[in-house]
């Protein structure tokens, strides 16, 4: 959402036209083949789709995995949401309308009347207040995964059952995205009062579907909530999310045992499914708000030396990797720290100035060798902690080959996800292949990965302290003018890529395949939004 337009009264529907341009730009990137939305939505039917991982919790506030989002999103509502088909335009979800004070320090939302939780109790502004208090000041035993996003909120008030007011400490250019975050689900204040951890094990929201059952390792079932506050929705009678491995998923799609998978397939998997389904398949493609990166442990030798980190970055042929790996894996575009194609992204002319992004690989590698020699690491070897799943394995093979060409030996230590997280949190690694995704392109959301570790220990795992980066991060977070903000984002990227505490490798491409009878679903650059299934219907 354009931040320079926020100092005035905004009604969700009236802003749409003004904000249509970026959405259209996105649409030009996205490719949808096969059947698109057509005809009048029909009621009925059960949507079956696959999810590759089990949910570690039911609490959206305390996690960041799609395994939770793709099952829980249909059960919950949020204050705002991204408009289907018009990303990144923001519309109301529970909020019917809102006003923003001219100084951008007070946000007042009016809720829809007659919103009910699945147990029949009314959802009021008090539920929103208590849910947001839980997010910004989690009680004992609760960890708010995105707590820094709420740092600028001074107070939350619920003067009447339909009005909620957020007062800010200072301007936060990302706050509307925070209100639209799919993670910030609204829980029952009454139930939270009785047990602040109830959402961990109980599913009870106000979303379009009621929870029926979860059989671990097998399936998750939801049924239509007939008292859903958006009249006429949802269209489906229910949904069934089935847990299965990626290879099983391809076969299940090809055999029409499931109708969809919303995270993404590789190009080859797409081709296999499309070949099997023929005209019954539809595909959607988009650059993905998800990138592969290499984190260095900047507290340990040899990566405490910026010359060594920079040499590693210089050795990687991102242009060659992008052109070729995109044919065989989910790895795709070249970009910096913000999603290529987004309004915050650097141009190619800007990118080629960064270490490791120049197109002359011979010169890059010569410089890498020079830096290693200067740092006294001509025969550098190190272990790369990697995940034992795709496309991490593909990225590992690529990186090892690239570094071999400057004489660096890399041992690819592929481990289970638990061991990978253990290495990440303990700092017991030299280099770690990582990925990062967010629910929006907003720079504050994505740059947080690269600020000083003491500012964001859960995500900024490179164990580096750089106050210059932190200052640039804080300045862009407050900058409302998008042009000025973009300049600050660029300065942040320049600084980070010069110091190379962590280095982006490639951004992912999102390829979603589903049966053509699944209608009303919206493709977006992130797999975290548009998953409440309220608009989906079966032809």
């Amino acid at each position, binding site marked *: 959402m354009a931040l320079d337009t926020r100092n005035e009264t905004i009604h969700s529907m009236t802003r749409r036209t003004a904000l249509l341009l970026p959405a259209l730009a996105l649409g030009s990137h996205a490719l949808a083949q096969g059947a698109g939305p057509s005809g009048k939505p029909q009621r009925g039917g059960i949507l079956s789709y696959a999810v590759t991982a089990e949910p570690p919790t039911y609490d959206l506030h305390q996690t960041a995995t799609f395994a939770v989002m793709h099952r829980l999103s249909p059960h919950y509502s949020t204050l705002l949401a991204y408009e289907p088909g018009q990303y990144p335009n923001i519309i109301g979800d529970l909020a019917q309308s809102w006003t923003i004070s001219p100084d951008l320090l007070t946000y007042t939302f009016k809720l829809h009347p007659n919103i009910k939780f699945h147990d029949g109790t009314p959802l009021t502004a008090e539920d929103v207040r208590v849910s947001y208090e839980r997010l910004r000041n989690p009680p004992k035993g609760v960890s708010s995964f995105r707590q820094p996003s709420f740092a600028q909120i001074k107070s939350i008030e619920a003067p009447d059952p339909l009005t909620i007011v957020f007062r800010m400490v200072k301007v936060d250019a990302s706050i509307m995205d925070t209100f639209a975050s799919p993670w910030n689900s609204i829980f029952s204040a009454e139930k939270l009062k009785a047990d602040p951890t109830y959402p961990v094990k109980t599913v009870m929201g106000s979303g379009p579907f009621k929870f029926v059952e979860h059989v671990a390792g097998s399936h998750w079932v939801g049924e239509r909530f007939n008292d859903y506050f958006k009249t006429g929705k949802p269209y489906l009678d229910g949904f069934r999310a089935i847990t299965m491995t990626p290879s099983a998923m391809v076969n299940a799609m090809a055999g029409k045992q499931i109708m969809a998978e919303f995270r993404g397939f590789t190009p*080859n998997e797409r081709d296999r499914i499309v070949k099997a389904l023929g005209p019954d398949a539809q595909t959607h493609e988009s650059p993905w708000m998800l990138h592969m990166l290499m984190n260095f442990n900047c507290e340990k030798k040899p990566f405490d030396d910026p010359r060594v980190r920079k040499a590693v970055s210089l050795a990687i042929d991102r242009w060659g990797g992008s052109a070729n790996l995109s044919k065989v894996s989910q790895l795709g575009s070249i970009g910096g720290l913000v999603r290529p194609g987004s309004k915050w992204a650097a141009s190619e002319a800007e990118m080629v100035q960064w270490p490791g992004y120049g197109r002359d690989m011979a010169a890059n590698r010569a410089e890498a060798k020079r830096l290693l020699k200067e740092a006294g690491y001509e025969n550098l070897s190190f272990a790369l902690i990697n995940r034992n799943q795709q496309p991490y394995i593909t990225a590992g*093979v690529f990186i090892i*080959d690239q570094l071999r060409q400057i004489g660096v030996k890399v041992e690819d230590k*592929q481990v289970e996800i638990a061991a990978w997280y253990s290495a990440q949190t303990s700092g017991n690694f030299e280099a770690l292949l990582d990925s990062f995704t967010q629910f929006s392109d907003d720079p504050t959301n994505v740059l947080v990965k690269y600020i000083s570790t003491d500012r964001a220990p859960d995500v900024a795992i490179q164990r580096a302290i750089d106050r210059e980066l932190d200052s640039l991060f804080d300045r862009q977070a407050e900058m409302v003018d998008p042009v000025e903000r973009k300049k600050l984002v660029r300065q942040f990227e320049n600084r980070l890529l010069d110091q190379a505490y962590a280095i982006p490798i490639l951004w992912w491409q999102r390829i979603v395949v589903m049966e053509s009878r699944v209608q009303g679903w919206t493709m977006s650059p992130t797999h975290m939004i548009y998953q409440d299934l309220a608009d989906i219907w079966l032809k």
Partner: protein
Amino acid sequence: MAMLTRSFNNALLFCRLQPLGALGLLIIVVMAGCAVLAEQVTLYNPEAVDFGAMLSGPSSEHPFGTDSFGRDIFTRIVYGARTALTIGFLSSMIGCHIGAAIGIASAYHGGWVDLLLQRFIDIILSFPIVVLALVVVAVMGKTMVLGIDLNLVFAIAIPIIPRSCRVIRAATLSIRTQPYVDAARAGGYSTVYILLRYIAPNVIAPFLVLLTAYIAQAILLEASLSFLGLGVTEPKPAWGLMLAGDSANFYNEAPWMILFPGLAISLSVFAFNLFGDSLRDWLDPKYRN
């Protein structure tokens, strides 16, 4: 010199009487030669990515084609032989030797020692060989020494131990009742001396057969574990690993990605089995006649 001549004549006789075994041995020797001389036999680095040659079909440049990273499949199969034979040979040696030692001790001692050891062996035998190896490798993780994952070697060796133990125990049970063993015992020789001098040499025939048979089994197990992502990992070349991951996705466009590694596994297992069977026939007078 006389010994060399006798060995050579024996080898010729083996080839004449056991032509299939000789064929198996020939394949094994060729594989071992390739593994040892991999750098000389191949033109490419097995881990070198070549985007210009991605998914190329068999050609004079790449006789077995290339994979999705443009890596030469022939080169990776030759280097993969090194992985397969090293892990196969080490696992079989360790498993069969430990199994044989337990089997001989168990049968010779008898009584409660035999009873306890055999019940323990029963427990291990109750696990399917792949499942047991899977559990061991998942629990132990990786310990790399000279480029070899020692834990993978032990994970494959452990399921071999009880099977080797049972066969050697059975052979020992019949030998320990032989008059020459009674005579040795009556002569006051120590248990260790009797085991090493009279028992062990007489179980060497079944032991050699086991050893060769379990090399084949170990190669297959290593391939299975690598296929399941628990054995050798990318970018190291290994036959099972070459069948896993991307290969399954490209079976239509690049069938050579699964064809040649599959053939390499089949051929090596076939060769060791042929040789093992022939060795059994050769060493057992009953079959020899």
